[in-house]
């Protein structure tokens, strides 16, 4: 169950590349058991913010992951779902190869252990992906890859789950399955979930908090607060919104 006690505080985060200020003074507060969505136009600094949280780009300001008494959590486990992988279409690496090489020391080039195969298959089943174990990564559909990556990010279960949704390549049906899985994960596990999303409909239906970014914090709050604000209308003059039931 979600404990509601862990939280991620992002205070005054700025990232510059040379003279170019990518994001300025971003503040955010995300709680466990909740899905916080980061939205914004292309180039608004969404992925840069994620990279700052992951420690991949230099930044100023503080990123604190703390328990209920404000003491920092030691040995923070981060699960990360990248937008895409570095592999090319001809890569022979399968979903099993990816999961095993990320989570086990037993060499993937040796005969597989039945116990590991069973464990990974069971884990994948929770993500509607049990049939993908022996499929090559390069041959997965966008939705399948997203679910396989979510499975990889949650093995072992992280304290903080960070998702960078692909801009395209996942169809509506795939997205719906993905958000439903994420919703289930949110309700049953004790983790802070942060997601960069491009699909405003799904954000409105599934997110608990929204951060609207435009090279800096423009607006934060519940989906209704953010989507109903003038700032939102300024950033997205014609948002493709429709009702999306859970």
């Amino acid at each position, binding site marked *: 169950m979600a404990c509601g006690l862990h939280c991620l505080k992002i205070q005054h985060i700025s990232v510059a*590349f040379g003279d170019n200020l990518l994001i300025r003074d971003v503040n955010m507060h995300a709680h466990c058991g909740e899905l916080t969505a980061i939205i914004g136009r292309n180039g608004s600094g969404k992925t840069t913010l994620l990279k700052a949280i*992951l*420690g*991949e780009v230099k930044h100023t300001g503080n990123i604190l992951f703390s328990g209920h008494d404000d003491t920092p959590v030691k040995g923070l486990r*981060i*699960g*990360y779902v*990248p937008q895409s*992988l*570095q*592999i*090319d279409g*001809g*890569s*022979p*690496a*399968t979903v*099993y*190869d*990816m999961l*095993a*090489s*990320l*989570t*086990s*020391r*037993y*060499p*993937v*080039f*040796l*005969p*597989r252990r039945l116990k590991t195969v069973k464990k990974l298959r069971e884990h994948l089943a929770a993500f509607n992906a049990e049939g993908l174990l*022996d499929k*090559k*990564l390069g041959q997965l559909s966008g939705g399948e890859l997203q679910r396989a*990556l979510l499975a*990889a*990010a949650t093995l072992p279960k*992280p304290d903080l789950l*960070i998702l960078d949704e692909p801009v395209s390549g996942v169809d509506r049906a795939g997205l719906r399955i993905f958000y439903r899985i994420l919703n289930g994960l949110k309700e049953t596990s004790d983790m802070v979930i942060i997601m960069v999303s491009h699909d405003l409909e799904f954000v409105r239906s599934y997110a608990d908090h929204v951060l609207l970014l435009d090279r800096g914090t423009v607006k934060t709050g519940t989906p209704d607060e953010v989507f109903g604000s003038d700032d939102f209308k300024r950033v997205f003059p014609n948002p493709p919104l429709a009702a999306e039931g859970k």
Partner: protein
Amino acid sequence: MSELLFGWWEYEFMRNAFFAVVLIMPLFAMLGTLVVNNGMAFFSDALGHSALTGVGVGVILGMSDYKPAMIVFALLFALIMNRIRHSRLSSTDTVIGVFSSCGVALGLVLLSRGGSFSRYQSLLIGDILSITGDEIIILAATLAAVAVLWLFCFNRFQAISISPSLSKTKGIPVRLLDNLFVVVVAAVVMLAIHWVGLLLINAMLILPAAAARHVARNTRSYLLITLIFGLFSGLLGLWFSYQNSFAATGPMIVLIAGILYFATYALRDSRQ
């Protein structure tokens, strides 16, 4: 018939070359699979060419045995190029190309002073038939060391080649392992360059793995097929070379590996 198949065994240098092939090809198979996965074919090619500069530096420094200079230079070259590869530059292949060609030019200038480049020609095409018993022991030790490294680190190397960011969040020391990998590739390439030659060493590293990718179903079969293709082209190449009055062995091996590449490509095409 047995003379045709096994006549070469009478010669000590052929026996040595046989052991060299049996050791070098698995070594290259292990490295080659990851070099191809990481899209580093051009990188390792440039690395091979840096041998020329390394030897040139050794000669300038007046070293009688230029191998240490060559290896130290290649390791530095590999680490610098790896840094470039990960930089935010948009055209890293161009930068690697520039480094590589300047390195070759510098090496050629240094080595051709006094019109004596012909002394170093063996660096270009190599000669596997010249390998000695002691060198075979060094090769075997290298193979054993890389095999142990692979047992402990292959998963993490592979994870990095799939996604460095994802690997980092799993606590994998991405930068360290990535540098370790290029250092190992550089050391093995420099060790083998005398027997294989810098013109073709990269082909021997890349081709079996590239061919295996056409037919492999997963990482396990990828490594196994690369190993089989490597040994097959190595041994057949050696035998063909013996049958053809010792025509250059390295190029013969590469030709066979090249045929395997195109044959498996056609096979994959017909399957689809």
